[in-house]
């Protein structure tokens, strides 16, 4: 596997504030990597470091095997798409697309060719002679992508490109981005705080917190086998149900609740007894006739019902702790009803109470 982008022991501080701490990341050729995290986690900062818009405090950045730590942004073979589009307002779409090429002294005929190709890929040919002010949000974002596209770069960097669009357009452009990646097969690094974007677009997701990568893995791994409590809590909406308790001989005990962890895949099968936190996704809790097949069964009282059309959210309480259950959208449940639920411990996640790491 060839590496497209490699980040080695990267540190970045603004004065006394350490934003990135000894960060290592290898991104494969043609990979779609998403940097996911809440605001202030350093994901955009990392992207700016890769782009060369921020000077790193320590460490190295390699693009295509070449050390670009001291290189100018334009020399790195990257194209960048910004959240606010950042189109040059006084230039036409065509001017926007060709600005970078003109700076690189590309011959005129070649500029024409590349602009035409990018316009074709992104379907913005009719807009070429308009100014950005006369474009809609989606069109602007397309032009911004086109600006990276014409430069024939190895790596695309996206800084929350869809966050300024309305919900419907965002979903459309998301699919289009995925299609574009399939077509171009470039390396793409994509920063977002939206987990749906991350799950749908990424080959791999890096979940970040406080300048550290909490977990790097495929969307499937991130969702099903979160490495630690933070990732487990961050991914999924509504978020996981957590419960503190004790692990005793492969059985989770919390108050008068006992949950034998039948079929749970421990990282270390000889995991010793200790205080733990168990996490269960609301959508992994079964109701109705499926309860009979579930390894663990219990009854809960419904506190609150949120019908959302596609599915229904149930807020219940288990021994006084809030507990969320996701049911089919057609389920008709009323407040105060007693609901039989089934839990499959093999789909749960167990974390060490102290280190918050997965067991």
């Amino acid at each position, binding site marked *: 596997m060839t590496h497209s982008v490699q980040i080695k022991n990267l540190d970045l501080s603004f004065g006394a504030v350490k934003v990135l701490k000894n960060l290592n990341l290898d991104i494969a050729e043609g990979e779609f990597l998403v940097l996911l995290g809440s605001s202030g986690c350093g994901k955009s900062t990392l992207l*700016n470091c890769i*782009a060369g*818009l921020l000077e790193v405090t320590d460490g190295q950045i390699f693009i295509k095997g070449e050390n670009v730590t001291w290189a*100018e*942004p*334009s020399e790195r073979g*990257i*194209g*960048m798409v*910004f*959240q*606010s589009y*950042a*189109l*040059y*307002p*006084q230039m036409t779409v065509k001017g926007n697309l060709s*600005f*970078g090429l003109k*700076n*690189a002294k590309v011959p005129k005929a070649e500029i024409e060719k590349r602009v035409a190709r990018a316009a074709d890929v992104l379907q913005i040919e009719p807009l070429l002679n308009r100014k950005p002010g006369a474009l809609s949000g989606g069109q602007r974002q397309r032009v911004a992508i086109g*600006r990276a596209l014409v*430069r024939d770069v190895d790596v695309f960097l996206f*800084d929350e490109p869809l966050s300024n669009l309305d919900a419907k357009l965002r979903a459309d452009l998301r699919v289009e981005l995925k299609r574009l990646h399939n077509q171009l097969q470039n390396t793409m690094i994509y920063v977002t705080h939206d987990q749906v974007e991350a799950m749908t677009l990424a080959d791999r997701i890096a979940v970040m917190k406080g300048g550290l990568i909490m977990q790097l893995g495929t969307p499937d791994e991130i969702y099903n086998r979160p490495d630690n409590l933070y990732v487990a809590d961050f991914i999924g909406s509504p978020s996981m149900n957590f419960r503190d308790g004790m692990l005793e001989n492969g059985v989770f005990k919390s108050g008068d609740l006992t949950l034998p962890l039948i079929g749970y895949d421990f990282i270390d099968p000889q995991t010793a007894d200790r205080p733990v936190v168990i996490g269960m996704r609301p959508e992994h809790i079964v109701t109705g006739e499926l309860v009979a097949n579930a390894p663990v069964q219990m009854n809960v009282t419904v506190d609150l019902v949120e019908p959302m059309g596609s599915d229904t959210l149930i807020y219940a309480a288990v021994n006084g702790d809030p507990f969320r259950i996701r049911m089919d959208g057609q389920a008709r449940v009323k407040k105060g009803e007693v609901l039989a639920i089934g839990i499959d411990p093999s789909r749960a996640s167990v974390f060490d109470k102290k280190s918050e790491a997965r067991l």
Partner: protein
Amino acid sequence: MTDMTGPRGPKPKRVFNSTNIMIYGTLFIVCLYYLLPLYVMIVTSLKGMPEIRLGNIFSPPVEVTYEPWVKAWSEACTGINCEGLSRGFMNSVRILVPSVIISIAIASVNGYALANWKFKGSETFFTILIFGAFIPYQVMIYPIVILLRESGDGMTNVMQMFNPMLEWMGFEGFGKIRLMGSLWGLVIVHTIFGMPILTLLFRNYFTSVPEELFKAARVDGAGFWGIYFRIMLPMSLPIFVVAMILQVTGIWNDFLFGVIYTKPDTYPMTVQLNNIVNSVQGVKEYNVNMAATLLTGLVPLFIYFASGKLFVRGIAAGAVKG
């Protein structure tokens, strides 16, 4: 059926309510207060001296004459010189144009660098520059006299080193270069004194330009000057207009520097106006004085009228973000 009898639609407004009367009344009085002197000036400038001697300053001219205006422009005497204000006008233009262009060119690059290319100590540099705006002029007058004199001498020494070469090539060599008392000296002074406020204006404006635009241009391979000329400059026309208005009116109205750093043949219009109006010899020609004053005030007046809206917009754009 809904109740259609109660209040419905927009609430009716009375034109003559107490608030409106207060507001418009006050505005009217203030306007009158400010415009009355202007009226007197215009009226007086159109009268002949016999009519003025009647002493009725508010009455409109019985016999309109433009002669005072002609006299003020081309015949009024200051000392032995009787060319009127026209020479002062030309001097002022020759001071104004280079001062405005040079000061805005330098200040806009300053502001751009301070806003977008932050370097170590750029904030300190900016603070020092702004501090310059608060130092009273009086403190700097004499040091600048010395500076201009000495740097003129220094430049003379440097430039005269080329004289043998120039003479060998058949050109005339440099004579003594004087900054003190020359128009260029005053241009330099105006450029320096405009720097703090203009830099502040441009820095604040460029700070309000989205940072991502600047980043995108860097990714696109544009450098310091490329971004300045191709991205920032075309976007910031309003602030350039504001800077121009500030500088044109400021420099045109300047009297202090003009009287100190120039000589009688290079006096700007304001200084010459003062000399005409305050001349102690002969009869006081009020009509000529009024015409001369109005002529001197015409340039800033025109600038304000022509650009009123832009001026307000630019000031607002420059002032909001710190």
